[in-house]
């Protein structure tokens, strides 16, 4: 095993994120104790606090919300007395049926695949970290970066709905209303963004530095 360069963690050093003070941390920290900065009093963390648990919590919440987000209609279009409620998938199907497959593909990826993929990737990362996997940490880190970068684009759908609702208010001719599905979808996107934020990619590398059991 190739020796890794020294790191603050291995030196039991910890820096305060508020006042930049580097301080010495105890080697084996008791679980029920919390570290504070001796200078400014800010809470100190060697890694993002409680990262795995928080990410898990958010990922599970996102999964729960993912179901109503896809089952419930996200918007209702009333046009000339004809009312139609659409879920994300029925909207995609509608576009496909009418030959607008590039648009259908776009919405399908942005609204269905991306949030699901993000959640799946996060779950994979969480599991791999908990299993102390040493497999391709660099690629896993890249995966994490992609997840974090792409997550916000899922909000496109929500923006489209909100803009349409605001613009299309033509009385009997055409009216668009947002439905509860949109709320859940928005929740899924926001919660996955937070889940990606609470996950600490350094955890991927921490396992590598620990000796083999």
């Amino acid at each position, binding site marked *: 095993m190739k020796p890794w360069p020294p790191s603050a963690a291995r030196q039991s050093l910890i820096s305060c994120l508020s006042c930049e003070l580097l301080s*010495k941390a105890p*080697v084996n920290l008791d679980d029920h*104790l*919390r570290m504070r900065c001796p200078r400014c*009093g800010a809470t100190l963390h060697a890694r993002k606090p409680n990262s795995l648990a928080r990410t898990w919590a*958010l990922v599970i*919440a996102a999964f*729960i919300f993912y179901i*109503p987000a896809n089952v419930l209609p996200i918007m209702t279009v009333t046009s*000339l007395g004809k009312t139609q409620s659409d879920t994300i998938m029925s909207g995609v199907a509608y576009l496909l049926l009418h030959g607008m497959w590039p648009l259908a593909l776009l919405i399908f990826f942005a609204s269905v695949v991306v949030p699901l993929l993000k959640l799946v990737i996060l779950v994979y990362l969480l599991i791999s970290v908990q299993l102390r996997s040493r497999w391709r940490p660099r690629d896993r880190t890249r995966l994490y970066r992609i997840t974090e970068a792409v997550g916000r684009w899922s909000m496109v759908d929500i923006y489209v709905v909100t803009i349409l609702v605001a613009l299309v208010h033509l009385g009997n001719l055409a009216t668009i209303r947002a439905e509860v599905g949109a709320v859940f979808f928005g929740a899924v996107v926001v919660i996955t963004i937070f889940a990606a934020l609470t996950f600490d990619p350094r955890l991927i590398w921490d396992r590598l530095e620990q000796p083999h059991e």
Partner: protein
Amino acid sequence: MSEPYLEKTATEPLPEVVLEQRSRFSLVWLIPLVALAIGAWLAYKTYSEQGPTITITFNTAEGLEAGKTKLKYKNVEFGQVDHITLNEDLSQVIVTAKLVKGAERYLTDKTRFWVERARVSAGQVSGLSTLFAGAYIAIDPVTEGQRAYAFKGLETPPPITADTPGSRFTLRAAELGSLDIGSPVYFRAIKVGQVTNYRLANNGQDVEIKIFINAPHDQLVRADTRFWNASGLDVTLDASGVKIDTASVVSLMIGGVAFETPVSLETGQPAEPSAVFQLYPNRQSIKEGSYVRKSYWLLHFTSSVRGLTVGAPVEYRGIRIGQVIDIKLELDLNEVIARIPVLIEIESDRLQWIGKTPDYDNEREFKKFQKHLWNQLVAKGLRAQLKTGNLLTGALIVDLDVYPDAPSQTIRWGKSYPELPTVPTSLEEIRNVLTRILEKLQRLPLEEIGEDLRKSLASLRQTAAETEKLTRTLNTSTLPEVTATLNRLQKTLAAAEKSLQAGEKTLITAEEALAKDSPLQRETQRTLKELSAAARSFRLLMDYLERHPEALIQGKTR
């Protein structure tokens, strides 16, 4: 903890971190808990709001879309079509629909479903909104009745929904005419209802038309109300000109029914719900009466039916109650007898029932009633008989009358038509005539007449004898005298003729003589002058003689 790296960078000892107790529970787990709670609530809500699922069969799924078409009642969403399938033999469309929660109580066997599409008929235009919004399935919910989850959809919207106040009645007509579902019903030219349905009656002879009269106009329908078909034009041409009668232009196109309650002997009770009425062909016939319910009877006449034609009236004591339908000649090969069966129809509706009215709708009940009634009538002596309807043409009619003395007979309830007993025709009539003549003869004072007659004859004989005597006398004595007289008369006449001829001659001579310039004329004038002178002298003489009559003896005294 004595890594060289640290020692190189850290010039002074680093401060130790402050340690403090931390809470065991991480609040972050609240997020999935809340998510779970919301999810669970949503799931419960979806489940609890799940309404009943029903199936409706239609002939066509035109305009229906699975997952889109709504079920509506008074334009309020009641549910949505879930999927549409065909039944096994491909004859019908089965629409499965999910209804909203709480819809169960409106799902009874009387609840009706139909597809609301844009419809244009002569009477009205409906469902225009569906042109843009698409068709929907409309419901007419009825809460009373058996719970049901499978329905047969109507092909056309029901004209009357369950919540419309009013009454239903049934009309019986010989034919439907131009009436259709939705045809208006008029009272004094105001639309008060409409035709809701029609069907062929069970007996196959007339048409049953169901109508609905909206409240409060249904109160106008009385037990003796007459309905007539107001469809089309009623054109009458008579001495006063052309009369055109029509209820409205709408009824011209789609037909219509009108009614009115005639002022009559009977007091008008409000009609019972679902009462049955006659539908007369036009306004005039409500006064004449037209009869739909008919019963058929067979009559066997042994005598000649010369003069009886199809369509000849059947009368009861002079009141027309039906007509002759058919006349045939039958030869009974077993008994070698020719019979003449005559089929007549009796319009039972012409009878005014007094007492318990028969139930028209219950076919069996009515037949039983009729059988019983006629049996009783025949037992009382009701018989059919041929009678002369017209003395000039010799046309016969069938007359029904009660002959209490007629020999007892019964109706033969045969296979096809019941047979009414008849009374022998001509014999009966001849016998009646003879009886009448005999009665009159009986009343004559024949004996007196005989006596008088004898006396008259005797005197007559005497007169005759005397006359004879007289004649003889005349012959013997008077006649020769008369002959002689006649001969003499003849001679006299001849002489007279001669004299006349002579006279004629004399006259001619006289004429000649009397000519103006004739000597006779002048002579005559002179003679006349002298004659007048003579006459004057004679008068003088006469005057003298009158005064001195003695002069005749003594002469003139001077």
